[in-house]
């Protein structure tokens, strides 16, 4: 038996007793082989992505209240028409814009500053990298309850510190006042979200060759110029992807808000995701919730396309 015999057997070419191997062998040499290999992934994507999206879109055109089985059915664009005059929806849309812009901007800036600091390789930076990641690792539920306690108007340690430092006269109910509820929630989101940017940007910074900085230094560039002309341009792909991911995360995830304010007081922290969630699971109005979700989906798609194209245009 030669080595060529051993290699030939699995293809089935030499042995008609294995027609499947023979078929696979022929297929592997054709252009269809690539398509054949991606079929499992395609099926998976169809089942867990395409089908739910289409189902959600179809749902938005239906009256679908679980508690009114008799009155369900297709109603066209009625939910979308109702959305235009829905005061809570409009407030939630406005709040979502503030939440996303405020959240992403603050988290990106703090994440970038932290990444720059950790990238300098100063003493203790290894430990600091681990510590910085802790808020990101902590489950949102635990983080939410922890911050609710820290900002508590009776027992909160943050109130205590601010009073002792003279910034406040008395303990403040941060989540009970519409003017402070959103900033307070944004602070919690900042604490939880900035390590994501730190982690990704730090990884990007460590991939930039030192030669570039050395060459720039020889040419007389100061650290700020190095940052603007070397670091930022080379981090651009990471910045694009992290910002898009974070925007999607902030728009879609109501978990932190549910724990801290549940949209209140009034509608001061009502967001689209939270409104859709409550419409579905408190009012059982899945059709209307579906319409809100489709609007969110469209907004996110438009944002992502415009943002990526704008950055590409800037780069070119």
């Amino acid at each position, binding site marked *: 038996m030669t080595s060529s015999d051993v290699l030939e057997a699995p293809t089935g070419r030499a042995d008609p007793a294995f027609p499947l191997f023979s078929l696979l062998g022929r297929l592997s040499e054709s252009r269809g082989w690539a398509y054949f290999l991606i079929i499992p992934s395609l099926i998976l994507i169809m089942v867990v992505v395409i089908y739910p999206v289409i189902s959600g879109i179809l749902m938005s055109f239906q009256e679908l209240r679980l508690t009114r089985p008799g009155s369900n059915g297709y109603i066209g664009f009625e939910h979308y028409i109702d959305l235009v005059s829905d005061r809570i929806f409009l407030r939630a849309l406005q709040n979502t814009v503030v939440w996303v812009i405020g959240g992403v901007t603050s988290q990106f800036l703090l994440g970038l500053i932290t990444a720059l600091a950790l990238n300098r390789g100063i003493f203790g930076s290894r430990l600091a990298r681990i510590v910085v990641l802790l808020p990101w690792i902590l489950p949102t539920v635990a983080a939410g309850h922890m911050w609710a306690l820290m900002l508590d108007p009776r027992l909160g340690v943050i109130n205590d510190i601010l009073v002792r430092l003279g910034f406040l006269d008395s303990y403040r109910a941060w989540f009970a006042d519409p003017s402070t509820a959103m900033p307070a929630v944004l602070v919690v989101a900042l604490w939880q979200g900035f390590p994501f940017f730190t982690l990704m940007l730090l990884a990007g910074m460590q991939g930039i060759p030192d030669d570039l900085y050395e060459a720039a230094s020889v040419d007389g560039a100061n650290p700020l110029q190095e940052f603007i002309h070397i670091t930022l341009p080379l981090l651009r792909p990471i910045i694009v992807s992290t910002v898009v991911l974070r925007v999607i995360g902030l728009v879609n995830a109501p978990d932190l808000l549910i724990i801290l304010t549940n949209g209140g007081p009034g*509608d001061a922290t009502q967001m689209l995701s939270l409104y859709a969630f409550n419409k579905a699971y408190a009012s059982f109005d899945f059709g209307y919730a579906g319409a809100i979700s489709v609007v969110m989906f469209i907004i996110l798609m438009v944002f992502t396309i415009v943002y990526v194209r704008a950055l590409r245009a800037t780069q070119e």
Partner: protein
Amino acid sequence: MRKNSRISSGLSRRQFLKGLGVSGAGLMLAQAGLMRLAAQAGSINYWHHFTSESEFLGLEAIMAQFKERYPDIDLIQENIPNADFMARFTAGVLADTRANVSMVTTERLADMVAMEGLVPITDRVNSWELREYFPDNRWTGITVDGEIYGVPAFSFVDWMYYRKDWFEEAGITPPTTLDEFRAACVALTDPAQGRYGFGMRAGGGGQAFIADMIEAFGSPLVVDGEVAIDRALAIEAMDFWSGLYKDGLVPPSAPGDSYRQIMEGFKTGQTGMVWHHTGSLAEIQAAMTPDQFGTATKPTGPADTLTRTSFLYNGLMKDENADAAWAWVSFWGENDPAITFLEATGYFPASTAVADDARIAENPIYAPAIVSAAQGKLPPQFIGFAGWSQEIALPAFQRILTGESTVEQAVDEMISGLADAL
């Protein structure tokens, strides 16, 4: 022939057939018993929304008793936070990943039945040997269109905790009417000492008080499936309720205060009164001395009581393993589990047989609860109530507190929102 009709043992044909019949019946009964035992086996899961440590201790104790009684039934308890309970329940119904047994409250019953999430158990209840210890009002809150969907496990008896020492200091007694209640709030409030008269719950869970207040001022919410809120009475009710906040008689954090905040406020000496049900007694007793706090019935409104007495039920979500599920559901109605749970948590039993037990009847701390249990009325039962109260009524009320709406605007919003919800 006659001779042939006798069998060799000397028995007549009639005697033989009679004996055969008796033996057969005995065999069938034995078989039924065996089948019943066999049916009361297997694995069942139980969705609940217990939250406090005392509730979990009580649940664990009952589960241990249940295991002793039914060693062949494996009971798996699954805790779902109350705020997420309906989301999980709905997902379970939609995806057909139901539990065997689920907790059911009266406020949620209409929605749960409307989405076909519960299995009627009327026949089982009517043939249950403990049925007689549960008067009709226990079943009203779990009945839809004549079908019973659960068994009462324990009751939520509304009452009031008050700072006994503060009341003595102010020379006043627990209020019995809303006017007296407000006067007591004024007497107890002292911002210089960080004291407020009442711990208002206007954050999560505060929606219940809005419906209570509107009804206590004389306006129904829904009659025959139609909105029946009397605008003038509702405005009066919301004006009174929000007035406590505007006049500084409750903590400024009230718009965001939920159960945890009002309890901590009371326990840490920030508030002089708080309304809840008997289920929080164990927590209060653990944190305060008997000299510091007392219990009383809630004050009555101008037209109706503010006190609710509702029941926590357990119901079947599917027919699979129904006998084992029924064993768990009905077990809660027995004396020992009910007393065990009361002692662990303070939740009152639903069974009259248990409520008459000396450990309850002769304990003075429970006296207001016994009165409240008799006076209390059931929560509203109409489809859409939970969504309306949580999504419309509570935010509208919060906007009054934060100055974003007038009382009139908020009430109008509640009325129009209720029409949409029905």
